[in-house]
């Protein structure tokens, strides 16, 4: 009797505008592109809100009313929430209406959708704290289950997150961690004590996220009854089916004309037609289900690309250089503790900046190209590095100004 656990990731990065060397020292607005391009964050946000967030939320709300057993969970990135507050406050209200039903759980993540766990555990903890505060402020709830950026995961992360008080964590059900085992159970992770790991059923999840409208796919067209049958077929050899998807699947990655909204509307009803099936939220899963075994994940995994590793963000020299230069500024900025500079720095930690610099996509999959607002990965790198140079300059100037100020006071005291 599988329980279906739906988690939708909601995230919109703040894309860096075209920032040339000539901007350094004179332009402190890094994210305010106002052109007709996809670097215009407001434009993209409003587009996706109209195509996906509003209509999908309306459907989910309707489903919650129609089926008392239906449940779902969302993870809303801090950079998404920041943009929603600025560009579309009604969208926050729309999500609040879902949360207020009591059957929609919100998950924890890093405020800036960052790779901070890999580069700075201290910053990782700070960003979780920032996100927790934001969720509490906007929705009045406290997340209990954690999901890391892009489902990046390993043993150490599970251990770290357990130490922060979370009872559950999400990960990719990658073949190389599971081997012959099924993702449809709850697992313990090696090195962690009690935290439970929920693993994405990537076949079923990706059937919706990637293959839904693919005419080359033998199962095309995918209908709700067909998908519900696949779920029911798990009966007897699984506790839970984790459908983890980008929320933008609905209406943005799969456009409305593919029939994706009709699919979403009818899926819960079809799943519930089989009385053995039910829905469950991640925190319910954590408290109700017992682990059946242990997974050992010494290397990082993620939900990206066929490799399911970190290579989408950290593989070529420009990505590595950008990341190491970024985190090299952490001490200077935390020490200065200037909210504006620190926030600008954090906006640069968003994983998407490094995804845009990935050069794998020339040979491997067009997914990267589809999601890249820059003409080439090199353009993304150049603007990023120029911005970082400017930020460093601002920080150093501020530090100098402060030192001068302190010196001045010291002098005044001396002569007082």
């Amino acid at each position: 009797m599988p329980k279906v656990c739906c988690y939708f990731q909601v995230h919109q990065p703040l894309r860096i505008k075209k920032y040339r060397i000539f901007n350094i020292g004179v332009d402190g607005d890094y994210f305010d592109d106002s052109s007709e391009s996809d670097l215009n964050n407001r434009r993209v946000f409003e587009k996706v809100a109209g195509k996906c967030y509003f209509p999908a939320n309306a459907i989910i709300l309707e489903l919650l009313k129609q089926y008392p057993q239906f449940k779902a969970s969302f993870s809303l990135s801090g950079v998404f929430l920041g943009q929603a507050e600025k560009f579309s406050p009604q969208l926050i209200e729309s999500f609040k209406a879902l949360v207020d039903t009591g059957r929609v759980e919100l998950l924890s993540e890093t405020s800036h959708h960052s790779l901070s766990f890999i580069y700075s555990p201290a910053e990782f903890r700070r960003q979780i704290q920032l996100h927790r505060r934001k969720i509490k402020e906007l929705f009045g709830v406290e997340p209990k289950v954690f999901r890391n950026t892009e489902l990046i995961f390993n043993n150490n992360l599970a251990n770290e997150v357990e130490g922060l008080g979370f009872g559950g964590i999400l990960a990719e059900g990658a073949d190389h961690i599971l081997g012959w085992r099924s993702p449809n159970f709850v697992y313990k992770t090696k090195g962690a004590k009690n935290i439970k790991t929920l693993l994405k059923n990537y076949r079923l999840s990706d059937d919706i996220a990637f293959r839904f409208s693919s005419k080359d796919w033998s199962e095309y067209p995918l209908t709700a009854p067909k998908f519900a049958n696949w779920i029911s077929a798990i009966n007897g050899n699984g506790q839970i089916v984790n459908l983890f998807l980008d929320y933008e699947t609905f209406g943005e990655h799969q456009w409305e004309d593919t029939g994706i909204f009709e699919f979403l509307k009818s899926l819960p009803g079809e799943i519930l037609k089989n009385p053995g099936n039910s829905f469950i939220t991640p925190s319910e899963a954590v408290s109700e289900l017992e682990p059946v075994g242990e997974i050992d994940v010494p290397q990082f995994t993620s939900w990206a690309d066929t490799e399911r590793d970190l290579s989408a963000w950290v593989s070529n020299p420009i990505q590595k250089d950008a990341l190491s230069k970024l985190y090299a500024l952490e001490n200077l900025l935390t020490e200065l503790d200037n909210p504006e500079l620190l926030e600008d720095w954090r906006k640069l930690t968003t994983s998407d900046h490094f995804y845009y610099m990935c050069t794998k996509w020339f040979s491997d999959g067009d997914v990267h190209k589809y999601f890249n607002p820059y003409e080439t990965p090199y353009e993304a790198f150049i603007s990023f590095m120029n911005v970082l140079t400017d930020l460093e300059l601002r920080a150093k100037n501020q530090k100098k100004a402060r030192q001068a100020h302190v010196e001045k006071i010291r002098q005044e005291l001396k002569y007082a």
Partner: protein
Amino acid sequence: MKTKVLMFGWEFPPYNSGGLGTACFGLTKALSSKNIDIVFVLPKPVNIKSDKIKIKFAEDQAGMTINPQDYLLAPYKSPDQYQNDKLPGRESVYGNSLFDEIGRYGKNARFIAKEYEFDIIHAHDWMSFPAGIEAKKVSGKPLIVHVHSTEIDRTGGNNINSEIFRIEKTGMETADAVIAVSNLTKKIIVDNYHINPGKIHVVHNGIDVYDYPSIDADSAAVIKLKEMGNKIVLFVGRITVQKGPDYFLKAAKKVLQYNRDVFFVIAGSGDMEHQIITEAAELGISDRVLFAGFLRGEELNKVYRMADLFVMPSVSEPFGITALESVVNGTPVLVSKQSGVKEVLTHVLTADFWDTDEMANKILAVLNYKSLELTLKENSIEQVKNLSWQETARKCIDIYRQILDSYFLRV
């Protein structure tokens, strides 16, 4: 049965002034390795030996040999320059103008077409189009014209020579198929010459990576230059309006405002040379702009390897083989968006030729961020390995087959 091709060219390495000769050499070598028989015709005798390709000179009178220095191999010179550059005492032998020469080439082509047996005619660029047309007339065999460059590219669209334009247009109209070296060139042919797009095939040029010495074998001189802390930004090409040397200087000026330790090397010669030297002086950057003159072979490879970045700011570049040459020498490239090579070489930086701010921004990024240079270099060399002349030849053979098939159907 072997397909026999009668090919008309204008220049051939080492007697070439630019990409046309390089392309003809690379293509014919690859074609003959694929079991295609080629007679490659040049207008006049030069001292070239080739094992595989039969080279025929249209003016092959006994006792007449041409000293390469005298030989005005200048497919891209305007007729006026051609007249100016002509050496005294040659007029009586060669006729008075470039057009006379091209006309004579055409007449001689008739005899050659009668002398050889062949299945198809393949003519490279406008100077050889009249020869190709004549050969088609006397033999009745199909003609393919291969467009490496158009009058529109060479002039930047200003002061087009109407006679050259007419020769190009007639060639393309008469041909059974047109090969364009890029989609960019195909578009120019369709938009400006009004040729039916259905008969234009895009076949990109290539490069044979393994013909170039391994990059690790760097000379001591190069290492020393780098040790001195200088960066080198390179321009290779004719110093003429099409290649955008003036935009290169404007970008250089902007780069130097941010970083004085950069040398801008211009390798090439051309009608704008004096203008460019003067302009560098007027911009106050003469001490940072070096003129290396026209280089070829190992000297050219050395310059590529010495550079930190190769810039091709062409106003209109049908392909741009120099970008591939730079990559195989381990130097990343910045090309104008108005160049065909970027259709097949995507691991490059690009900028509009007129956007010298953007060009300077990207030059400085490569000079400032070592990882950018490294990533471009690693990825572009991988990509170039797949752009071999073998691939270009394979596509040409497909076109030969297609044309021959439909030709036999008609007969």
